[in-house]
């Protein structure tokens, strides 16, 4: 396999990792998952750095990757500690639980709207007297699902 093809494969993998991490970071709300996604983005970058280093035949890329690992380790320590504290405070790992830092007067983001409950009393079907064939009532047939 030629050097260029190898590089392309590695870069493809790195881009996929980065894209997956980015997507995950944007769409997931669990703090730990978001953190892992961010790590995944870092790994994607690291893979492409290593690939470029190999392609150019120097150690710069690898050296940067070592830096990234160190920084990521530190970041992991801090981030996990923060997540722990946030979990203890709010009782949840949901990032949306920490939306107080919004502009004054902005509406709070609520996950889903609970449908309003109907106020009017349910309409119960009238039972026909037993023993005779009831007349066909199309209205009643419509309401049968309420039973």
């Amino acid at each position, binding site marked *: 396999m030629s050097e260029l093809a190898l590089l392309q494969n590695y870069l493809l993998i790195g881009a996929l990792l980065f894209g997956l991490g*980015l997507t995950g970071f*944007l*769409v997931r709300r669990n703090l730990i998952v*978001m953190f892992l996604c961010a790590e995944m983005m870092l790994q994607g970058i690291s893979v492409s750095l290593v690939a470029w280093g190999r392609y150019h035949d120097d150690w710069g890329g690898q050296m940067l990757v070592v830096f990234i690992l160190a920084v990521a380790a530190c970041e992991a320590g801090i981030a996990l500690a923060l997540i722990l504290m946030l979990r203890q405070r709010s009782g949840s790992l949901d*990032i949306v639980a*920490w939306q*107080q830092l*919004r*502009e004054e007067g*902005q509406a709070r983001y609520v996950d889903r709207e609970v449908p309003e409950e109907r106020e009017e009393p349910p309409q119960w079907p009238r039972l026909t007297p037993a023993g005779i064939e009831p007349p066909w009532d199309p209205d009643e047939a419509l309401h049968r699902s309420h039973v």
Partner: protein
Amino acid sequence: MFEPQTLLVLIPALPLAACLVTVVLGPHVLRDSSHWPTVLGLVGSLVLSLMLVASWQQRLEVRGAPAELLVTCWSWVDVAGAYRQAPAPPSPTGVAVQPGGLRDLRVDVVLRADALTAIMLVMVTFVSTLVGIYSIGYMRGDRGYWRFFACISLFVFSMTMLVSVSNFLLVYVFWEAVGVCSYLLIGFWYQKPEAAAAGKKAFLVNRVGDVGFALAIFLIWITYGTLNFHDSPGVDGVLGQARLSGALGYVGGGVGLAICLCLLLGACGKSAQFPLHVWLPDAMEGPTPVSALIHAATMVTAGVYLVTRCAPLFTVSPEAQLVVASIGGFTALLAALMALTQFDLKRILAYSTISQLGYMFLALGTGTLAGITAGMFHLFTHAFFKALLFLGAGSVMHAMGHVIDMRRFGGLRRVLPVTHVTFAVGCLALAGVFPLSGFWSKDAILASVHERAHQLDHELAHRQPQPGAAAGHTTPDRPASDRVVAGVDSHARWDAGREGGSGPALSTGQLRQHARVYRGLYWVGLGTAFLTAIYTFRAFFLTFYGRERIPHEAGEHAHESPRSMVIPLVILAVGAAVVGGWLTGTGGFARLLAETPSLTLATIRESAGAGGFHYDIAVASSVAALVGIGLAAFLYLGHDREIELLTWLLDGRWLKGLAERPWGARLAGMPLVAAIRRGADAAGLGSLARLLGNLVLLLILLLISPLLIGYYVSPYRLSRDKFFLDEIYAVLVVWPLRATAAVCDAADRWLVDGLVNVLGRIPVWAGGLMRALQMGLVPFYGLAMLLGILTLIAARVLWGAG
């Protein structure tokens, strides 16, 4: 022991040092002994001033010694070629005033002593030393004890500098400095709203005068090209030898008159003369020693000092002299009338001060050496007896628990024996009773005014036979020998000197008018002497005689004041009693003052004439004073029936009663009117009769309206309410100023501030547009970041690739 130069520097330096020491150490270290630096500094200044006068006497014996002493401290302003001067117009006698050319603005801090300065220094330091000692007792226990003494010594520093600097600009500086001290001390009890308001009033009214002084300085600068009094190399000072000897003249005409009137406006502000006198009575809100020192003896005489110092400038415009004399005479009379009905002991003394300052201006307005000497002499003696009276009033206040209303105490001669005797001496001196100080100085003033009128008459008679001297014939084309120079007896002697001098010239009509005014002013002065005796002794009798009444505020304190207060009273009383007679008898004052360089100008000097003792005038003024005292005794000793009658007559309450009578009903009820009515009805002319009757009623109403006006502005009310001058000023000056201030305030608040606020709201509004994006959701922030980066990358790829 010291060189005179050292003395001159040390005299102001000691109070300044005392002020600094008191300010630094007073609040925490010295506390209740804060008076020591001030008293020591003032005593030192007094001793040095006396030594200066003594050295001056020695100098006088050495003929040919320069009559002035200059000490150059440092150069304050030095701007080369500050002003290109056009040649000043020549003086009335045709002598050049100032050649044109490039002038340097150079202001050196030069202390200058001459006889006038020495006299002022002695007077200021003497009174302030005694007042300082008195204040130890009077101010004891006050919260601002150290503040008081710091202000007093700062004031003495400013005042001694004011009289000894040798430059109009520096005079202005210390003029303002004494004004600041006055402001600080009037508002010394600043928690009291009246005191704060009085301080503000004094400050603002003085600013009006200061505008005049400033304008005078500007005019002097563009006319004479220098502001120095003395000659310096290459520059002839305004009061320098070149001008005084007649080599250079003083500018006359419109510019000269303007300079004099602007100076006079400044002097009127500081010395509380007629249009600007309203601040002095209110200044009595300050502590009494301050009233004695600043508002009676020293600071208020700064205006008199200024006019005396600038006497040569006044010689060239007789109109200005006439204005000075008229303002002085008018103020003297007006203030004496106001003093007649006041009940506040200190306020009576304040009006009396205004009145006596008016006397001084009256004397200065004569423009003769005798007049100026008389004015300065009255300033000197007045400082003694007015300080004495104020300190006596302070002693009364101290005993009465700070009650000053004379209706609430009385008969205090047994409670306050020493104060009683010293106050009596002060009253006699103020009223001008032989042989106390006031008699001599007041007599000298009246004599000088009388003599001036007489001189003008004489000159008129001298000129009458000459056909060429018709009225309205102006002077510049007339030969010098026709010019009016006061002092007719000395014509022959001074003919030569007058050629070089800058003698003023008047047309015959003006001469006649001036003579009439001066004669009128003489009678005004005499009448004021009479009024002075009345109001002085009214206050004296109300305070010390009659039934003994002590207000409850006095409590246990109704006893003679402590020794520190009594001793200055006694010293001042001795001074008030003998200083006038002594100085008149030996002639030392006049001799010393005549050595002042600015008074050696030919036109002033040749008017020296008599200036001696005038028996006729002395008798007239003594009779006026004695009649006044007798009248006061008649009215205020014993039964107050006569006062009630006088008050009733002058108050005009009966006028109101008269005006309120139901005249119409009365008229209708009269039998004659009823008969006419019946007859008219019978003849069928009833409507005509009713019309006539209504017309008569209207006529009666018209006749009554002056009665109502008379009620509201009766003589008593005019005097008690100070001729409504405060109210008139309130309407004419204060209200328009308030309205202007309100308009400016509104403009500032709505226009200027509004503009700034609008500009400030723009960022807020722009930020509001982006506000919706800040929703607190971290994933959204992440998305925004991603979009931003994508935008940047897209921009880089699309446009920035090259």
